[in-house]
């Protein structure tokens, strides 16, 4: 059976440190204002009975990805392993995919972002100089599940970095994989499942 990569996000373990956000940025050299994974917070209840929940978000690499459906150039495509990627050579930067994503996990690269740099001073750091050439200005970008790392048998940067092991990555087609076991044991569910995009990122409480 072909591999189908997915991820489980454990809301009980997530402490909202956003180390995943920084790890992703370090690994992929994303410019200012673009974060392929973010951990959102939500306050529940009213004082004095208040609690805070952290909700890590990432591209869901949907099986029926609306971003791939609406892309007029087929720049957004789904690999055999189920990873949704963007071919920057084909992308025309129309933004239809950004608009179509229900999770708002795509972004368009703007020239002014690169010109200003991470410190918004116009000065580009050595880190940015080595990372920015991989991008094409004007195109759409998104989480790639660190497919280059995965191809080498490594885990995505956000998964490796998470201090509480709140992120579990693996083959959803393998019944013995960690994500599959977690989903079954703790009744994993998907974000906005009713939209029928068939996300491959699951949440467990």
């Amino acid at each position, binding site marked *: 059976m072909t591999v189908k990569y997915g991820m489980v996000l454990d809301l009980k373990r997530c402490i909202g440190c956003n180390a995943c956000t920084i790890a992703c940025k370090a690994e992929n050299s994303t410019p200012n204002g673009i974060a392929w994974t973010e951990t959102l917070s939500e306050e529940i209840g009213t004082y004095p009975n208040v609690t805070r929940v952290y909700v890590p978000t990432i591209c869901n690499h949907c099986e029926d990805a609306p971003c791939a459906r609406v892309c007029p150039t087929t720049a957004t495509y789904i690999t055999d392993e189920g990873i949704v990627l963007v071919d920057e050579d084909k992308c025309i930067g129309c933004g239809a995919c950004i608009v179509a994503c229900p999770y708002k996990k795509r972004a*368009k690269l703007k020239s002014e972002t690169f010109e200003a740099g991470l410190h918004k001073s116009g000065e580009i750091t050595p880190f940015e100089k080595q990372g920015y050439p991989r991008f094409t200005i004007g195109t759409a970008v998104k989480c790639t599940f660190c497919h280059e790392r995965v191809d080498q048998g490594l885990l995505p940067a956000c998964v490796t970095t998470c201090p509480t092991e709140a992120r579990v990555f693996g083959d959803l087609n393998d019944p013995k994989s960690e994500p599959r076991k977690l989903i079954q044991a703790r009744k994993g569910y998907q974000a906005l499942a009713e939209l029928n995009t068939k996300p491959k990122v699951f949440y467990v409480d």
Partner: protein
Amino acid sequence: MPLRTYDIVGDEYRVGYRKQDAWGWKIALAFFFGDVGAGTFFVSAFYNYMPGMIFGWILTTFFKPAALFMHLGQPLRFWRAITNVRTAWISRGIVGAILFTGFGFLHMVNLKWAIFGPALGGIIFFLAMAGTFIVMIYLGYVLSHSPSLPLWNTGLMPVISLVYGLMGGVTMTLLFGVNSFLAADPAALHFLKTAELILIGITLISILSMLHGAAYNSSTGMATVRQLLFGEHQKWFLGYVVLVGIIAAGLLALTGSTAIFILLLVAITELIGDFGLKMVLFKSALYSPPLSHSTV
């Protein structure tokens, strides 16, 4: 104890409604030029009214792509946009625009110089009209095709898109033609004046239905509608789209006047409403929170 509600959070790292910010005035302008241009050609073509057809053709063939090029991140790759007609409504719309541009031009040439025979001329006319129809309606399918934004995800969107295109076509044809072909054809003038009023009425009902559907579809839809009626986008929506684009245009059209000044005012108010709606649809659209843990 009050029920929990979500805020519009923008880019903050909080669970809440997020704003659509990828599409703005440039692509709204592109769709606007396409709508009005295709609509004007569509209506004028039924009366073989050449100035109307030329105006519509120029608007869609030059102004629409110009605005689109301003929006695209990689405009020199624009030709790739027709490669996914299988699933992408943008590709289908571009194919429609190409049909309209090519066969619309041939139709105008044929009308002027009768180069093609009746059979071929008929096919050319049909393909040109098919192209204009696609250009008028495809924005609605582009918006409704994606499930991400409750305000857009309605079957009414193609209807609204088409009606605005036709309305633009009727008002522009009336404006251009009132002192030429319409002066000699009172039946056509009466038909177009009536059609104008009916289209304004359909627009009003469609927009009200769209709001109603969005408001009772989900909490995100309700939050979006509240923005339009009471919040940040109230001025644009109630002011430009409803008051100017529908009510003022409707009242002016109801006078039945064929004075050039009145027809010009009707056209201006209608076009303000058309562009205003596109802007407000793009600016006000909200994404649902990815997960919700609403509790009392």
